[in-house]
């Protein structure tokens, strides 16, 4: 029996992620130094893990409330107010999800109706466009430009808006460019957003990982909280990717609607992960600070090394990605990544998988030990010298 015809047209039409193909290639090879990884190299801090053990020993193996344990929501609420001056009611304005990814999915499914347009700013995390499509919406992409340091300009948003535009997806600091938007830049965007009555999905999963300037959370900007769904989680700054734990905060009616989908499709986020996250919220500051300091040093190292090699790379303000230009080599980003992998066993991700604006660039994750980064830079130097 041929079952392909049973697959929905929408899913059939979904393009497989460009990262997937590259993963298959890299996974077959030995001695690969990977700068292709979108997650911390640090293992989850021991006290979070140990707290999860303890919870399991105590028998916390059942479901929690749909929106997540109230203790955890209270701690997240305190954290958001302490770190980002945000005021969210843990009872009505917060939902704990299976990673920030599920929060994005819930948010889009909650607000998008067929025909609605959602603006996605590229180069960006690969999941936004497919999730908008799966929710029945029409993704409208904007390409940020290298000459603007990949910063989104208010004029670009204006141009992309049509009568059908319902929401805009923002990510700050951004994956894959590491671009960081400061308060003034966000305020400029907020003006356009307010004027056009858009809803904002603000993915702030890298908010803790900024290195030069103070971070401004989008909903903390005047009048933006009422029209923003804040999405974040524990994966990046708390080194908890595998635990799959995130959250969304926003207007009570939207969060209630998201919880409705969540209760039918997921029930709740994993209980043992919620207990680990509780410890992360209560006693995780020091670990986050130490990891952030380490990322900052690695960023300094990789950016200066890439520029020395001849791959021009601006200083990214946040996340753990450098996004150097490879145009000087005359290769496309896919060719560059593929040949670098074959010749020198270094994995980077071609910029084009993050959107057409990423062509001519590659994403290098510096969430890797200095020793590995050092070796990777040696190999890349050898590779680039042959081509310049």
């Amino acid at each position, binding site marked *: 029996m041929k079952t392909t015809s049973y697959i929905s047209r929408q899913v059939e039409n979904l393009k497989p*992620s460009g*990262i997937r193909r*590259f*993963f298959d290639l*890299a*996974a077959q090879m030995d001695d*690969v130094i*990977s700068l*292709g*990884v*979108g*997650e911390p*190299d640090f293992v989850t801090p021991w006290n979070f893990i140990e707290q999860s053990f303890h919870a399991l020993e105590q028998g916390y193996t059942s479901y929690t409330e749909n929106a997540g344990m109230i203790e955890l929501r209270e701690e997240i609420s305190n954290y958001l107010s302490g770190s980002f001056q945000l005021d969210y009611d843990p009872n009505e304005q917060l939902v704990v999800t299976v990673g920030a990814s599920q929060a994005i999915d819930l948010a889009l499914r909650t607000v998008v109706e067929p025909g609605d347009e959602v603006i996605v700013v590229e180069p960006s*995390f*690969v*999941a936004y466009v497919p999730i908008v499509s799966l929710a029945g919406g029409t993704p409208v992409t904007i390409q940020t430009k290298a000459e603007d340091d990949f910063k989104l300009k208010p004029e670009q948003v204006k141009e992309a808006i049509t009568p059908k535009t319902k929401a805009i997806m923002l990510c700050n600091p951004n*994956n894959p460019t590491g671009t960081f938007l400061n308060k003034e830049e966000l305020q400029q965007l907020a003006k356009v957003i307010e004027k056009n009555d858009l809803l904002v999905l603000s993915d702030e999963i890298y908010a803790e990982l900024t290195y030069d300037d103070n971070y401004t959370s989008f909903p903390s900007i005047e009048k933006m909280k009422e029209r923003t769904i804040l999405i974040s989680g524990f994966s990046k700054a708390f080194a908890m990717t595998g635990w799959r734990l995130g959250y969304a905060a926003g207007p009570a009616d939207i969060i209630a609607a998201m919880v409705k989908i969540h209760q039918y499709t997921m029930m709740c986020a994993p209980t043992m992960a919620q207990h680990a996250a509780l410890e992360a919220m209560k006693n995780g500051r020091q670990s986050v600070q130490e990891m952030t*300091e380490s990322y900052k*040093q*690695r960023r*300094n*190292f990789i950016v*200066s*090394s890439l520029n020395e090699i001849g791959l021009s790379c601006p200083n990214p303000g946040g996340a753990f990605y450098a996004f150097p230009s490879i145009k000087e080599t005359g290769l496309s980003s896919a060719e560059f990544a593929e040949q670098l992998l074959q010749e020198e066993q270094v*994995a980077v*991700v071609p910029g084009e998988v993050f959107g057409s604006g990423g062509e001519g660039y590659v994403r290098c994750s510096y969430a890797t030990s*200095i020793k590995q980064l*050092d070796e990777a830079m040696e190999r890349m130097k050898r590779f680039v010298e042959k081509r310049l």
Partner: protein
Amino acid sequence: MKEIEVELLKLIEKNANLKVEKIAKLMGKSIDEVSELLRDLEEKKAILGYSTLIDWAKVLDTEEVTAMVDVKVTPARGVGFDKVAERIYRFPEVKAVYLMSGAYDLSVSVKGKTMTEIGKFISEKLSALDSVLSTTTHFVLKRYKHDGIILHDDDDDDKRIVVSP
């Protein structure tokens, strides 16, 4: 102490073998700036030395023996425990001396080639000091973690998938 000095010290505390060039790159400073900072910190005796943590068991046939000795002493008038501590820490066999609160006064770490050698040092030198009232010796059987570093930790594989979004 300045923030930048703390950052530098934390880096070389973890790895004394880091070259100045690399430290400069990591901190986003010039090589000259880093060299000068290091010189200052050495002069201030904030940096006391650059030692290497070695697992001697991997190199020598016989492992070195370490004993932790709890020492009860009579403090001296005017100088408290300092004088007797000095009498003890001057011995090269002694690797560390701490003044402790609780059941005894000084915690003394002693290293030797064999248990006999350490026993001889304790009975003939340490216990024989006038101000030493008693000693209790504990031999170290296995080192799991030393100065923040986990020994015998060969499991440093990267468990992440090679490429992820």
